[in-house]
């Protein structure tokens, strides 16, 4: 978590651009939230590819433009959410050389205490550094 889903019309994003977009989304997320990149997942789909996605999205998939759906931890301020949405839409539009209006984005808040990653409940926003340090120590101990 966060999980960003990028749903686009068929064959509209070249593979190298997907890598650039995944890096850009990760960079924006980490710059805005100060979260470590290890948390950031970006999955790409083409519209109509997976019917089950619509259930997960909670909305019909966009058949024309590009849709980003971000499942992010709750507790982010509106200012932070606006920075995430604005920054990611801008980067994706630049990479794809399309107008900003062709990149839509929604975010959905998920409570940190609902999510386990790496065997630990996720930290609340702002507590990532301490969590990551503790988590890395735990993983090192487990593999020692």
């Amino acid at each position, binding site marked *: 978590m966060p*999980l960003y889903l990028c749903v686009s019309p068929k064959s509209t994003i070249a593979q190298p651009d997907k890598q650039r977009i*995944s890096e850009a989304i990760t960079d924006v997320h980490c710059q805005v939230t100060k979260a470590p990149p290890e948390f950031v997942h970006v999955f*790409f789909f083409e519209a109509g590819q997976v019917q089950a996605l619509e259930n997960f999205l909670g909305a019909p998939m966009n058949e024309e433009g590009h849709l980003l759906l971000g499942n992010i931890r709750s507790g982010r301020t509106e200012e932070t959410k606006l920075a995430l949405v604005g920054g990611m839409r801008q980067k994706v539009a630049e990479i794809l050389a399309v107008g900003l209006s062709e990149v839509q984005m929604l975010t959905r808040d998920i409570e940190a205490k609902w999510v386990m990653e790496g065997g630990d409940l996720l930290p609340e926003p702002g507590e990532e550094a301490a969590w990551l340090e503790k988590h890395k120590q735990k993983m090192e101990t487990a593999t020692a």
Partner: protein
Amino acid sequence: MIRCVCFLQEGQIPQPVVDKLGAGIHHIVTEYGLGNGVDINWIIVPKGQGWTAGKPSTSSVITLTTPPIEQPQRIEILNALCDLWTDNTGCQLNEVVATVMPAA
């Protein structure tokens, strides 16, 4: 009906193992008294379409929606899901993201 959505990376987990995971999710739902059945949607992330930390992803993302439950029970279920994945798939814990959340 309880719902579960699982994102898997294409080619990472063989179908017989996916079947075991499905059976395991059913068992967890029953064991914790969450409901009589679970509707599982497997969403396969096509090869080369999943990224974690800007690199090719090997992560599984599991989201189970449940009736309202207390946090201690939620943690038990989250641990059970993580154990199910690591015991059956060979994934490391860092490759498993599990969410147990109330139905909207």
